[in-house]
């Protein structure tokens, strides 16, 4: 360990194809999780907004899903769905739900009632009111939720290495097993880089989609 270099660039250059494959796998796993998570969240958020009584149980169930550690969730699923992408995605999707639903609901609820009333007064039907007024105005909050979900998911994907997936998490696990630091550093660094790049892309998307929204400081969590 003392004599060996901490990070071997030559190893990295020898394995560029593998690295590219794992990065692609990482992005695909993240993309599917976010896409499916968003679809389910929009549906559940609409249910919660339409029937406010159902909102607490929805957040309760998704809260429990969010609280269960990813490794435990994968462990529950492996006997049923095996070491598959499906197992990984069920786990990843279930972590996005709480974050996304809360932000969608908070975003829609945060729309100024005066704006809503003005739209109704102008003859907007409920569906058009939602699609053309409420949704665009809630977009900054919803996108903030998507950013958190994306960054969280990218980190969680690394853990799916334990069930044979993992994206760049493959390098972390392989490095651990082989006591090869270069791979651990590479896997961790790539995961952080992916998170930062995806986050910045979403910020850019937010600026383009909602040019009227000013930047606000994030709250902790």
């Amino acid at each position, binding site marked *: *360990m003392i004599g060996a270099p901490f990070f071997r660039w030559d190893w990295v250059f020898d394995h560029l194809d593998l690295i590219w494959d794992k990065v692609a796998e990482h992005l695909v796993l993240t993309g599917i999780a976010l896409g499916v998570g968003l679809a389910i969240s929009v549906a559940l958020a609409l249910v919660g907004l339409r029937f406010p009584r159902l909102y607490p149980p929805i957040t309760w169930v998704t*809260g*429990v899903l969010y*609280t*269960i*550690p*990813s*490794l*435990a*969730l994968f*462990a*529950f699923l*492996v*006997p049923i769905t095996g070491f598959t992408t499906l197992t990984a995605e069920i786990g990843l999707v279930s972590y996005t739900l*709480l*974050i996304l639903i*809360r*932000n969608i609901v*908070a975003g829609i609820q*945060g729309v100024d009632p005066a704006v809503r009333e003005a739209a109704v007064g102008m003859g907007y039907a409920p569906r058009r009111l939602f699609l053309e007024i409420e949704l665009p105005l809630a977009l*900054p*909050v919803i996108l*903030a*939720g998507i*950013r*958190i979900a994306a*960054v*969280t998911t*990218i*980190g*969680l994907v*690394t*853990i799916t*290495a*334990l*069930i044979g997936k993992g994206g760049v*998490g493959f390098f*972390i*696990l392989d*490095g*651990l097993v082989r006591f090869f*630091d270069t791979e*651990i*550093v590479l*896997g*961790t660094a790539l*995961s*952080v880089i992916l*998170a*930062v790049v995806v*986050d910045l892309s979403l910020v850019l998307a937010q600026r383009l989609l909602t040019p009227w929204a000013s930047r*606000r*400081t*994030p*709250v*902790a*969590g």
Partner: protein
Amino acid sequence: MDFFVDLIQWFGDNWSGDTGWVARTWEHLWISGVAVVAAMVVAIPLGAWLGHTGRGGLIAVSVVNIGRALPSFGILALALPLTIWLARTTPLIDSGIGFAPTVVALFLLALPPIFTNTYAGVRGVDADIVEAARGMGIGERKIITEVEMPIASPVILTGIRVTAVQVVATATLGALVGFGGYGRFIVDGIATQDRLELVGGAVLVALLSILTEVGFSALERVVVPAGIRRRRRSDVDPFLAT
């Protein structure tokens, strides 16, 4: 149905001894507690002080983002070479595997959310209240400990709760670097394709995480001063980054 009977049987057969789930519970709780308390000792004073002075706003925002982007699995894996190196070259620790890398990783992961919530909580205290306290001749230090911190306590406690749940979850991964805890059952269960051990471990981790969440929520109700409770609790939501 047979599986559930077998599972209950598994819990009955595997509770005692050094590798039983009772001992694993203790290991899991101990390491999580050490990591969270150590992170509180560092992050709360720092967050409160920076929040009080209003300095380091950019740092606070960056810390949240970096904290989220860091993969816990990667940090744990990186802690291993570090602690192995520390064990070889210094007398600080006996062994570089197991407890040491796990607790280092958990500590590092616990810092950002506790720091940011303390910072945000103290920063968010109404400036008029601080001004009034100053006018009454209360010293800056006492303003932090006796005015700002109690008012910020719901936000700070939310940070600790979120962190504790996250730490309990991540401690499971410690089994990959030679630590015990509940992760042992899951990692060994995957390795030996033992469904009962795998699911048994998962049930234990899930229960402990949920108990941690519920326990800290109850603690928040007890610790937060009555006058602040009603006003503040509703606007604490760690997920709303708006």
